[in-house]
Every structure is written in C-alpha cells, then in structure tokens.
C-alpha cells in the first residue's frame, strides 16, 4: 500500500516535470531571429514600417497637431498641458508629447534599419521585389529624418539596427548639414531601388521625387527644389483634385492629387477629427488669425459667426457652430481618412516658391493660380518677388493648414520670431529630457 502510494506520487511529479514546462514560446510574437527570414517576413516588415507612421504620437495625432499649435494656425482649447505649452511656445524639455514624437520616429527608423540590413539576406525573394522593399524603406528613413531635423535641428543618425543598448551612436548629434546629406543620400537610394510608380498608400517614384523637392526647399537649395518639383510634374500622373474636400474623404477614397498618404481604418484610426471637432475632445481650435487669413473681411475681434470666406479651403477647413470655431479639415469620427504626407498641391507650391526665388515670377504666378483656382479664388496678377513670395507663403498656410506644415515653414523662413514673437531659441523643439537623461553626451538645444 505504501509502495503504491509512493509510486503514484513519483509518477505524478515526473509527469508534471516532463516536457520541460520552462521552455515556453510566446503565442503572439515571433523571436527576432526568425522574423525577417523569408519573403513573407520581408513584406510584413515593410508593412510594419508603414504601420509605424500610424502611431498616435506621429501622423495619427500628435505630429500634425502639435506643430500647428506651435504656429499661428491653431490654439489650445483643451486640458493637456503638454499641448498648452506648445501653443504658448513655452515648451519644457520634459514635454511628454514631444517625447512621444521622438520615440515614435526613432521606432520607425529602427524598423527601416532592420529591413535594410536583413531583407537583402532573405533567400527566395524575387530581386525586383527585394529592391522595391528596400527602396521604400529608404524613402521612409528619409521622411523620418527630415521630420526630425525640421523639429529638433541636427539629430543622432542611426543607420543600422541597434545591437546593444550601450551603442554610443545615439549620443552624437549630427549637424543639420550632415543630416540633410544623409536624407538626400537615402532618397537617392530609394529612387534607385523603387520601381512601382503607381501606389499612393506606399512610397513610389513620385513620392521620392516629391519628398526630395520638399527637402531641398527646406535646405534652401531652390534650384534643386525646382528641378525636383518639375520632375514630379513631368511624371504626368498627378493633378489637383477637383474639389478640395475630396482630399479628406472620410473613407480614404483616392484622388489624382495623392502622392503619398497613410492608410487609417476603424481599427487603426487617427485622432485628428477627435482633437479638432467640438463634438470630440475639442482640444485644439483654429485661431482667429487664420480665419482672417481665409476671410480677409473677417476681423479677429469680431464675433466668429461673421466668418464667411470665399476661399473654399476656408469653408472646408473651419466651421462655426454655436458661436465657436472648430477645425473641420478632418471630419471622420472613426478616424478613417487618409492624411497626406505629401500631395501634388504641395509640390505645386514648392515649384512656385522655387521659381519665385530664382526669379521666374511668371511661372511662379501660374502655379500659384492653379492652387487658387481650385480654392475658388481669383487669380493674382504680376507681383514683385517679395510680394510673390509672401503670397506663396500665405497660400501654403491656407492650403496646408492643420497638416503640420506651418510651423516648419515659419522656422525655415526665419519668420517664426516675428510672426509669433518668440526668440530664436524657441524655434527649435527641445530634445526630450528623458533622452538627455539616459544618453550621456547628448547635447540639448539652447534655452532648454
């Protein structure tokens, strides 16, 4: 009897210990070593890199919203102090929203670095497809670094996946010039590898060229920007959408103006309308200054109910309800519109500005009037170079309001200090304090 009991106990314990219970595998994740090892993994990794753009700390919410708050386009009407500080241009280094943007962008850069490093080693991957994947990855890296340099100035350049937590690459900030050099180099690589011209929810040749135009404009290389913008036009596949509102279709329907835009769905949603709409959080609202820009007859000290612009962009982008103004460029309650990273309208404005800067005022005027015509505005006549540039900057503001472009524009043009009344130091965002704290040797921007 005793022996039987003993045996039973021993068997139970042995059976329990069999199939070593400590060797478990995660159910919802793949070990990193086997993630990008075949064609399926390579493709999935690329989609994962696009998925990184959807982050609510990036194009899904914070990136366009914070940038417009820093500018004269929108003001803070909600409760989040990190956004309130941006509105007042009194940013602190410990601002959590900025930290989120920094983290989201570097997360995406890492995803891209993994693709660039590992996809070439994948067996059984069609060479054309491999090139396409790598080319799109280079495009994304260029986009990410340009977004970083627009906000922070020179940043650490990571071009390979991190293998060690203690890698010192993260502690040296490249100069602005070197960052631009790398961005343009990545765009060259992208252009060499990308073959698909037609997709708009992923990078294409047109997207690479359009981004190059933007990057060169920001860098101040106007002739270069001109060439690049012209190259986009010469592709002959883009034209302005007939109605401005088409661009912001709530279900993400395509338009001929799309160059590169980001997919959002009901499950992978953006919060743009949620933050702007009165029925949503109403965290941000248009400034009366912007309203005056859309409707010159509207006085900022007037009752907002008097806002009544002719400019169709002004009608679409700002609405008045119950005596309150709200930004209505993005209206999908579910957050399913596809915001544009870059579209043909911006390319035309880049062309116009570049032409004006090199002295071709007539061409500049033609391009500006294309934009104005779509907005229902009368064409402008001949203007001096200064006036033409001011007009173009103004058209950029109205066309791209709430898309996160006004703040980088003001900064690159040296207008931020005068228009917003801030100091030169405030034109750069602070490197997030959390990054300074964990990266010895990383220098902070002055004034923070």
């Amino acid at each position, binding site marked *: 009897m005793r022996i039987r009991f003993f045996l039973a106990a021993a068997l139970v314990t042995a059976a329990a210990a069999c199939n070593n219970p400590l060797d478990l595998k995660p159910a919802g994740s793949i070990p990193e070593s086997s*993630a990008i090892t075949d064609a399926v993994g390579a493709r999935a990794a690329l989609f994962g890199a696009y998925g990184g753009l959807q982050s609510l700390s990036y194009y899904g919410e914070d990136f366009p919203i914070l940038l417009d708050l820093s500018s004269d386009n929108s003001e803070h009407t909600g409760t989040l102090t990190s956004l309130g500080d941006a509105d007042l241009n009194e940013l602190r*280094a410990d601002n959590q929203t900025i930290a989120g943007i920094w983290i989201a962008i570097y997360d995406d850069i890492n995803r891209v670095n993994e693709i660039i490093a590992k996809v070439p080693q994948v067996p059984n991957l069609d060479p054309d497809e491999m090139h396409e994947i790598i080319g799109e990855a280079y495009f994304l890296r260029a986009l990410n670094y340009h977004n970083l340099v627009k906000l922070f100035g020179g940043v650490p350049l990571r071009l390979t996946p991190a293998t060690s937590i203690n890698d010192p690459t993260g502690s040296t900030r490249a100069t602005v010039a070197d960052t631009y050099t790398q961005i343009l180099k990545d765009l060259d690589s992208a252009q060499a590898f990308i073959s698909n011209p037609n997709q708009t*929810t992923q990078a294409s040749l047109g997207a690479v060229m359009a981004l190059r135009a933007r990057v060169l404009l920001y860098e101040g290389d106007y002739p270069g920007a001109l060439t690049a913008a012209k190259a986009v036009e010469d592709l002959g596949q883009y034209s302005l959408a007939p109605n401005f509102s088409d661009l912001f279709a709530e279900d993400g329907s395509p338009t001929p103006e799309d160059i590169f835009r980001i997919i959002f769905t009901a499950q992978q949603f953006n919060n743009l309308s949620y933050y702007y709409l009165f029925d949503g959080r109403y965290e941000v609202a248009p400034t009366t200054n912007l309203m005056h820009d859309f409707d010159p007859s509207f006085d900022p000290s007037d009752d907002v109910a008097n806002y009544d612009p002719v400019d169709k962009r002004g009608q679409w982008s700002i609405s008045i309800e119950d005596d309150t103004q709200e930004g209505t460029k993005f209206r999908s309650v579910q957050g399913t519109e596809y915001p544009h990273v870059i579209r043909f309208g911006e390319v035309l404005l880049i062309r116009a500005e570049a032409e004006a800067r090199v002295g071709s005022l007539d061409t500049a005027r033609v391009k500006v009037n294309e934009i104005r015509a779509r907005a229902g505005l009368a064409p402008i006549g001949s203007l001096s170079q200064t006036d033409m540039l001011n007009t173009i900057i103004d058209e950029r503001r109205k066309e791209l309001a709430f898309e996160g472009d006004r703040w980088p524009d003001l900064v690159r043009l040296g207008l931020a200090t005068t228009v917003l009344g801030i100091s030169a130091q405030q034109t750069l965002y602070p490197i997030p304090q959390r990054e300074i704290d964990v990266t010895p040797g990383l220098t902070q921007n002055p004034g923070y």
Partner: protein
Amino acid sequence: MRRFTLSRAAAVLLGLTLYIAGPAAARAQQTATIRGTVTDSVSGQPVTGAQITIAGQVRGVTNDRGAYLSNVAPGTVTVRVQRIGFSPGERQVTLTAGDTTTLNFALHSVAVTLAQVMVIGYGTENRARVTGAVSTVNGSDVQNQPVAGLDAALQGKAPGVQVIQNAGDPGNGITVRVRGAASISASNQPLYVVDGIPVQSGDFSQLGPNGQGVTGVTGLDPSEIESITVLKDAASAAIYGSRASNGVVLITTKRGSAGTAHFSFDANTGWQQPERYLSLMNAKQYVAFMNQGAENDGDSDPFTPGVDDAHSTDWQRAIFRTAPVGNVHLGLSGGSDRLKYYLGGSYFGQTGIVLGSSYSRVSGRANIDFDATPNFSVKTSLAYSKELDHRIPGDNSLTGVVTNAIGEASIYPVRSPNGQFAGNDYDLYYANPVAIAELNNLPTTTDRFLGNVEGTYHFMPSLSLTGRVGADVLTMNELEWDSPLVDGTYAAQARGVAKSGYSTGNQYVLESFLTYDHENSEAASLNIVGGGSVEYNTDQLNFVRAEGFSSDQFHYVRNGTVITSFDGLPFNNNLISAFARANYSWKDRYLLSGSIRTDGSSRFGPNNRYAVFPAIAGGWVISDEPFMGDFGQKLGRVKLRASYGVTGNQGLTGDQEISDFAYLGLYGTSNYGENPGIAPTNFANPNLKWEATHEFDGGLDWYPFGGRLTVIADYYHRLTSNLLVNRPIPATTGFATYWDNIGNVLNRGFELGLNSVNFRSDDKNGFSWNTDFNISFNHNEVTALFQGQPFGDGENFRPISRVAVGQPIGEFYVLHFKGVDPQTGDAIYQDVNGDGEITSDDRVDAGSPQPKFFGGLRNTWSWKGFSLGSFLEFSYGAKVFNLMRIFADDGGYNYDNKFTYALNAWTHPGQITNEPRASFDGTSGAREISDRFIEDGSYLRISEITLSWRIPDHLMPVGALENTTLYVSGHNLHNFTKYTGYDPDVNSNGSTSNIALGTDYYAYPRARTISIGLSTNW
C-alpha cells in the same frame, strides 16, 4: 529493571490525563519518590496536562488537580515541567532512596499569542518557537467589514503591513506593502497563499475605466477565514522563494472539528455616506472669481452676474447618495473522529456612494478533512465565488463621474426643464456626470474557483508525505456600454461604444513534500520539510469593441456597425521548485532554523533560469536561562531572534506578451490597413534575472507581567538588488524601454506590536480592557540606479514622481513654490540654477508619498455582556499630490470649478496671501505644476467603533441559540487630516502603480458607514 519507563512514542501527549503513580506497595527500596503540584503562578489554579520530565525521561502528565508523582532512582536529578501556554519550569533536586521529596512548580502563563499554533509555510509552528518576523491577524478582525476584500480589511492591523486603499470604489484593487516598496517595475504585491496553495491576485481587467484596477483578492471571502499570517522577513518567507520578496500573506480558512454539527450565522447591514465633501465654489462665487480673472487680464467677462449664477448646482451632492452595504454568512461545521467538515456560504453587497457603482459577491466553501485510514488523511478545500462589480469611470478619466462632478462649474443644472440631462443645450464644459453614471454601465462579472486537495500519508508518527493539487481558475467577463445620449463624450459622436472582454487566469499547482517531526526526551525537537512543486499558469484574453449603434437601447457588440478594436491571445508562464527547511529547538530555549528553495521560471532565459534562496534564523529564549534566575521569571518570557535570508521577485508587469518573454528579442504585429505587418516590440536581454532581496531581521518577543503584555518588536534591513526595471533607454535604438536588472532599493525600519490585557477580572462578566497597538517606521531609499540615472514615470501626462538615487521611490520632483509676490500677485517659483528662467531644470525633490510611520490602535472594553471596541488607524509624514488643483486651483485658466480657498486670491498690492492672482489667461503662474499642490497626507482615522451586546442566555427567546451578539458599528467615522481632498489615503494610479504614488486625481472617496449586525450559533 525500570518498571515505569515510557516509550518515546508515547511521549506525544495530547491532553492525556494520566495519573502516574507508583504503586504504594511492592516498591524496591532503591528508589526515591518525588511528587508535587503544578499551578498557574498568577491565579494559583492547577495546571493539568503538564508534561513532567525527570532525568531526561518523560514520566507523564499532571492530573486534573495538577499533581504528579513519580518514583525515580536516587541522586541529583533535573525535573522539568512544560505545557503549552506556560513558560517551562526546571529545577534540580537531590533525591535520597526511600524518601519522598515534594517539588512544586508555579508556571508563568504566557499570552494566548504564545500558545498559538501558527501556520507558516509548509507546516505549522508554535508562536513560542517561531524565529522569523511573523504577524497574525484573526479572521474575526477582517470579517464583517464594509469593504469587499480582506486586503482592505487588513489596514492597520499588522505591524509592517501598509495598506493603501487607493480610492473608495467598491471592489477596487488595494495596495498592500510589506516592509516598504522595493520594486520599481516589477510587482510590489505580496504573495497570497490560501490553504497552502499560492493564488492569483493580479489585475485581470482589460478595461480601464479609471485609474483603479481590480485584483483577484476580492474573490476571497473574508467570512471564511480562520486566520491570516503575514511572513515578513526573508527567513520566514524564503521558503516561498521567487515570489516572496514582498512578503507572504498566508490565509487559512475555517475547518471543522469533531463534535456535533454547529451552525454559525452572521448578518449585518449598514448605510454609507461620503465621509466629507470638498469645499467647492457655488455659482455666485464661481462667476465672480472667473470674471475677476478676466478683468485682471483685460479680457471681457466670460459670465454675466445675475444671469449665469442665478442657479447653483451642488454637483457633489448630485452624484453622491446614501448607499446600503451588507453581508450575511452561514456556516456549518462539525464532524466525527474521522470526518470533519466546514461548509460556509456568504453574500456581500455594497452599493457605492457614487451613483452607478456597486459590488456584490456570492461565495461558498466546503472544507472536508477525512482520515481515510489511520495513516492516510485527506483535506479538501473547495471554494467558489462570483463577483459582480459595476464600475464607473473615475480618476485619470476624461469622463469620470467623480471627476466631472468636481470639475463641472456650479452654474449648470443637472437637467433641462424637459427632464433630459443637461448637456450641449447648456454648453456644459464637461460631460454631465449624472448622465454618465445613469446612462453608461460597466458590469464586470468574475467567477472564481479555488480548489485544493491534499493527502498526507504517515509512514510513522514522525514522518509523513504530503501531496497537494491546487487549482485557481478565474474567469472575468467585462462589458461596457457608453451611451451616445451623454453629450460631450466620445460615444456621442461615435453613436455609442460597446466593449466585451473575457479574461481567464488558470493557475495549477502540484506539490509534494516530506515532513519529519520529532521531539525527544531531551526536549529537543526537530522538524524537517523537503519537497518540490510545479506551477502552471495559463491565461487567455479576448476582447471586442464596437461603435455605431442605431439606438441607445442596444448595449452589446452584436448591434454595432463597426468593430474598432479586437484582441485574443493565450499566455503561459510556469515555475518549477524544490525546497527544504529544518527547524530545531532545544528545550524551547534555543531555536535554529534554516531553509532553502530553488525556483526555475520560464520568464528568464537559459542563462538565468534558476535561482536559489537560502535563509537562516535563530532564537534564544533568554529568560529561561538559569543565569537569569528570578529576574528572568519576573521579567517574563523574553525571546531574542535574528534572521537573514534571500527572497526573490519575478513579477514583471506591463504587457504580458512582453513581460513573460522579456529576455527575448521579439517582433509583434503592426498591420498597415489590410496588410499584415510586423515590427520589433522588444529588445533582447538574455541576462535578465530575478530581483533578490537580502534581508536581516532582529527581533524581540517579550511577555512581561505574566504574559498580560505581549511586546513583539523587529528591526529590519532589506536591500533589494538587481531590480527588474523596465528602464528607459536611448530611444534612438528604436525602443524606449528595456527590461533590465538595475539598481538597489533599501528599506529599513522598525516595527512594534503590543497586545495588552490592561484589566482583567476573574469574573467572566466583570470589566476587562484590552489594547492592541502596532506602529511601523520605514525608511525607503533608492541606493543605486543604472549609471545613477533617475527616471520619472510615464503614467501621467505630467511627470511629477520619479525614482532617483538617494530618494524614496515615488519622490515628487516638481518646481518649488516660494510664495505669492505681494506686489504683483504672481506666483514665485524657485530658480534653482539661477538662469533667470523657470524651466524643468528648476525642479527639486519636493516630498515623498511614503509615510514616516503608520499603524493602528485597538481598544476593547467589556463589561457584563457589553463590549465596546474602537480601532484607530494613523499614518504620518506621507505627502499627497492633489492633482485636482491643476484645474481647481489654477487661478481661473480652465473653466473647472474651484476650491473655495481660491477665493483668497491676491487682489491688491501689498496683500499677503498664498493664492496667486486670478488670471483668465494663466499669467499669474497659478497653473504651474509645483509643490504648491503637494499637501500633508498625515491622518488619524477613527476607523471603527463597535458596540456589541451578547444577549444573556436567559433572555434568548430561542433556547437553542448560543452566543448571540447584537452590535452596532461605525466605520471610517472621521478622518483627522489637513488634506483638502477627500482622503489622503489615495492613489489615483491604482494598486499596480509602483512609481506614481500618493496622487489624487479625482479619486472616488471612501464612505462613512453605520451598520448593525447580529451573530449567533446553534
């Protein structure tokens, strides 16, 4: 040949009253006779059943007159008397042949606590022999409390055990810290063990309606508990190894005993109200204040006096109500020699004092002990409970009921004239809290099955083999409906939001161990336990969220138009262990114990899978030493003890998919539209390993005044190293955080527990007065971090708490407020670095949420059948960050309602005040996050006052009922504190938060309860 040698086996005495007599006749003349009586030194009453040992041999026990008599060989012999509940007595005497020597003993009784048989890990031990730091709480002390869980009921009852209620939501997760917080990212919760099996106590909820979570502890019914033992130091807890560094709470449920069937019945019902209301502005004050802020900045008045302030709503009173709470328990126990049983069932119901919230639990238990054969016994403990928790959004939520009631200005009505809830028609700034409470719902149902079957086979009386199988199966179903009828919420524009979540947690434990228990005639006893165990954890979750409903009458996912979120995944983590412990005691005077455990966890990579946790402890009953002599007897029993040991923690928190496999580099899902995508989610750390806590404890157990006073004091020094921290790393790597072992935390402190029988009358109905007091001091300090880098918590949009070397965990780190400039009314902040700017570089350490000391004081007076008990609970030195003031004391920058003390705002030059100038544009600095909002969280709480009356038998209408007691009780009657919020015992980040502590962000307040109850047996 000695005729009266008793075998060793028969020396195990359990109340055998044997009269040891040497026959008067037929005795060889070579023996001597020794006789005497053993009495209680205080009362003089005879001590029966005391074991007599003469010359190393056990002779038997005293009879019912306390007398003994024995024949022994002549010579000088040592006579020893011992009985549980008394200090042993020992004397030497010289016996001569043929003579009769009388030797009487007067034994000192020790407090009942000494005589306790306490449950310790894998066995039981007498309090007399315990060498570790162990506290016990009786089941009766945690029963009949108007709180759902036993953890809440433990507050203030055991030294070294700090309980923070976090908020007053019925059924919410409670924070329990044994000897201070040691972990930064890993769990700080103690290990809960019920009837020998570790149980799940975490938060399985997928929905986060507010900052409060729920824990598995509320599924355990306090009415079923016989006793709770808290193992506090490493020596006592190390036998639980890798989960024990935060202490172990051993819960023993009631079991039957031989005898006729015996029913017990407890019922109580009470009424709860808020213990206090916040002092917020009424409509007139609000309008005047906001207008003043606008005028100060040259803006136009936002409100019109006489129009906007014509009607004032007290939003607090609109959401608070008097709510019932009650509990009923019926138990049946009994048994025979071979079968003993305890059956119990309870119902606990608590309606929340805030509209829309409530909690109820139905539970039942069957504990059956069966002696299958004389050598084989079986114990089964089976329990089932079902909880229904109606939660409401609250702290940390934009649509919280309490949040919006405090935030909503008093100028808005609750309802429009047509009876609908006021909303957009009145331009309500925040969603109507009454509408949220009444139209939205969030029922959470949890089913819990706890089962434990244990078989023990005795090879010999001293050697047994025990096998245990335990299962803890928890299923939680959460439903949420957010109505589109509540203006100003996301659901209003999304046309309703419905969520459905299922979580299951299954924990299976198989254990077996050998126990060797030996007492020999030299009064040496040895107890050895050794065995192994395997624990399987299988969890699973499913979740769906839908929007777009055609009618407010549909509340479930099926009727929505679009699924906006979905999830489903299993999780596993397992543990394999082996353990051994030896306890040795000689004459109950010298005590030594050692234990060792090794655990292997699936959470760590092959490099560090196994860890070893040793411990050693010793005790010395110095008062029994002969050299102490009479002084020792007068002093009372004094035991000195010391222990040293290592315990571990493997409780990584956060995303379970990552925390179960944090040592691996992982890729997870990142889809792009309909395209499946993957992206890196975790950076590998193959060297990740256990947290370890090395703890030294020195203690004193002293029972002076004949045991009327019990003093248990401990000093401890705990150093936790290799902290498991999800630490921030350079984001340029692509990852913001990374699980790593870094840093050290030191907790050292002092605990004191006193139990005193102040006054005791011999007459059962006379006056008696007992006092129990405990106080704990803890010093918490982070002593090392990775390269000394501090880090704040990412849980708030506003980082105010941080972890830094030389500071306690959760130290507040904000700007320092120096005062209000009498000339301008601006708030002045300290410019620490002297650069002329107030930036985040000017932050300073501004106070700690950890108290300097805390404890409880219980007094019980009884006279005749009446008994009055009071329980006070106190905490001193903790700071609370009143985050509500960011909006409620911001000088008028936000449209929120304000605290009335904002009316002291500066108005004219030369005025001295602490409230900055009212400023609609926020120019006075009132809205800066600084230590202006940090308040003193010390409190003294009248936690309970109970008056009970034991109905005399002759007054009982039904004769069969015995021990019938009626009582009336008040809980949380008053809290003496300077804190301006509801309750300083608060944490709006819930029980799982480690760093962000002591913050009040619109937490649900605790109720004051008056209840009446009845308990009886038959």
